[in-house]
């Protein structure tokens, strides 16, 4: 490894990145926008839900205080059900003597769950303490929100996705315009070419990771129980591993279209199978093994453990994640080096 040559390639690449203003803006702004959109659009409790009450009951009175429901009352159940049928409201809450009967438009499970929870709260408020209560939580927040689960996964997704987008175009064109051949004629090795690119992209990566972490924690108030430095390191490692994957794709693609073609099928499985949107525990056998092979699954679990549980490197989930993501990156790097080497 000739470090002077690596440095020369890194400097050249970095000046190209710097000069391409639109790309630079895209690279820095897009992760920020994505984190902001996810934070605002996902995981919050639905509000302004129309609900119709029928009859009189202390529980219904309590319900009137709900900040999520808009309550109207009607005379009889059939008219109220018709209103729900027409889509004017999500539910009818019927007081039938001492009994409460719920009639739902169950087409939206999240909305239904919110109304159920509000009714439960009202029941508790009107009937006094139930014989069941929640002790102090061991990890996480006393009143966990879906966004707390989601945010670490989204951070992983953003780090993964933008590192790939950053690097897939690296060698597209350079294979055909002779510039790579010129480097190889000068005795540069594939590993040196790759290292130079990684060094240049790393400057961008550090910025990206910093933006992603500070927005998630600073702006959306996602709990951060563990070491932020450890989180930063894992995010960087994941970024590097993803860059190596991106570089591997880049060595295989001779056009921008082909690079896109190779990248797109990767992003969707990662989004769906890494436990980012939904727990991996829900995956069927077969898919769950596949899920375990994705570095993003390991990273997402470790991100959650660091952020919610405050675990450090001593926890198996965390150190294994470092090990696995690092190994994955190294394998991708070797694959890219192999693929970049001139055919002999």
């Amino acid at each position, binding site marked *: 490894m000739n470090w*002077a*040559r690596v*440095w*020369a*390639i890194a*400097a*050249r690449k970095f*000046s*190209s990145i710097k*000069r*391409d203003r639109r790309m630079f803006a895209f690279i820095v702004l897009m992760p920020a926008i994505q984190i902001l959109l996810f934070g605002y659009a996902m995981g919050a409790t639905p509000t302004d839900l129309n609900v119709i009450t029928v009859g009189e009951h202390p529980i219904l009175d309590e319900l009137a205080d709900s900040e999520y429901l808009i309550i109207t009352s009607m005379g009889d159940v059939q008219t109220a059900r018709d209103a729900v049928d027409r889509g004017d409201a999500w539910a009818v809450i019927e007081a039938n003597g001492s009994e409460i009967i719920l009639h739902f438009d169950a087409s939206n499970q999240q909305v239904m769950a919110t109304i159920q929870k509000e009714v439960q709260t009202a029941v508790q408020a009107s009937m006094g303490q139930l014989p069941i209560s929640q002790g102090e939580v061991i990890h996480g927040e006393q009143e966990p929100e879906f966004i707390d689960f989601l945010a670490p996964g989204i951070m992983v997704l953003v780090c993964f996705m933008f590192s790939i987008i950053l690097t897939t175009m690296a060698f597209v064109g350079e294979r*055909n*315009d*002779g*510039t790579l*051949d*010129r*480097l*190889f*004629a*000068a*005795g*540069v090795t594939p590993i040196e070419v790759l290292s130079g690119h990684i060094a240049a992209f790393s400057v961008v990566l550090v910025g990206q990771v910093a933006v992603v972490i500070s927005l998630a924690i600073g702006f959306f108030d996602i709990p951060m129980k563990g070491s932020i430095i450890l989180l930063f390191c894992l995010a960087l490692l994941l970024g590097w591993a993803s860059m190596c994957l991106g570089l591997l794709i880049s060595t295989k693609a001779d056009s921008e279209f082909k690079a896109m073609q190779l990248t797109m099928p990767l992003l969707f499985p990662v989004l769906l199978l890494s436990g980012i949107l939904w727990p991996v525990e829900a995956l069927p056998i077969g898919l769950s093994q596949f899920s375990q092979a994705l570095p993003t699954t390991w990273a997402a679990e470790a991100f959650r453990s660091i952020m919610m549980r405050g675990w450090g490197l001593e926890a198996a989930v965390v150190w294994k994640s470092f090990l696995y993501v690092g190994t994955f990156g190294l394998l991708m790097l070797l694959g890219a080096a192999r693929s970049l080497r*001139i*055919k*002999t």
Partner: protein
Amino acid sequence: MAVNIDDLVRGYGKIKVIEGLDMEVENGSIYGLLGPSGCGKTTLLKVILGFLKPESGSVKVPEGIPGSAVGYAPQELALYLDLTIAETFLFHGRLHGMSPQQIDEKQKWLTQFLDLPPGERQVGKLSGGEKRRVSLGVALLHEPELLLLDEPTVGVDPELRARIWDYLGEISQQGITIILTTHYIDEAGKADRVGLMRGGILLAEDKPSTLMKLHDTNTLEDVFLNLCKREVIV
């Protein structure tokens, strides 16, 4: 002898591109490799560069190839269009371990020698001929002992082509060995030695004047035609 190739065989898979080629290039000479597209010229250059390993036969080249012993200008311009000329030289100079002062001095010399535009001009905004000369300059930058030029005059106007040949003459007088490929038969007459390549072998290899005398004509084109006919008959 700068390059000595003996009975080289090389192909891609089952297709043999070069089949039993012999070639001798003397130190400090200009060697013109002449032949139609697809005759194996570029493959031969890649073998000399060490990109491709011979399947059989022997290839002797100077020490340090690939590396600083060779200056290579691919058929495509092989330049980063977003860099300036100065940055281009700085980058390639660093790859060869040159100091900034060395690069600077060499750039001054190349700018004069090849009549290049000022260093702060962006490569992407240069004319085709200017880019061609910058590409040649990059290959010369680190003073290699062997210069490999793949089609250095393709798509270049006659005036610039004549100038490139003048440059090459001067460079070879400094003791640098030059191998270039071309499919312009007329210009190959200016080389010290030409190899007429077809179907993966050299049909003939000698001084242009000797070849013309041997075939009793005064153009290389006739020599090539003669050789092709003879090959068909055989």
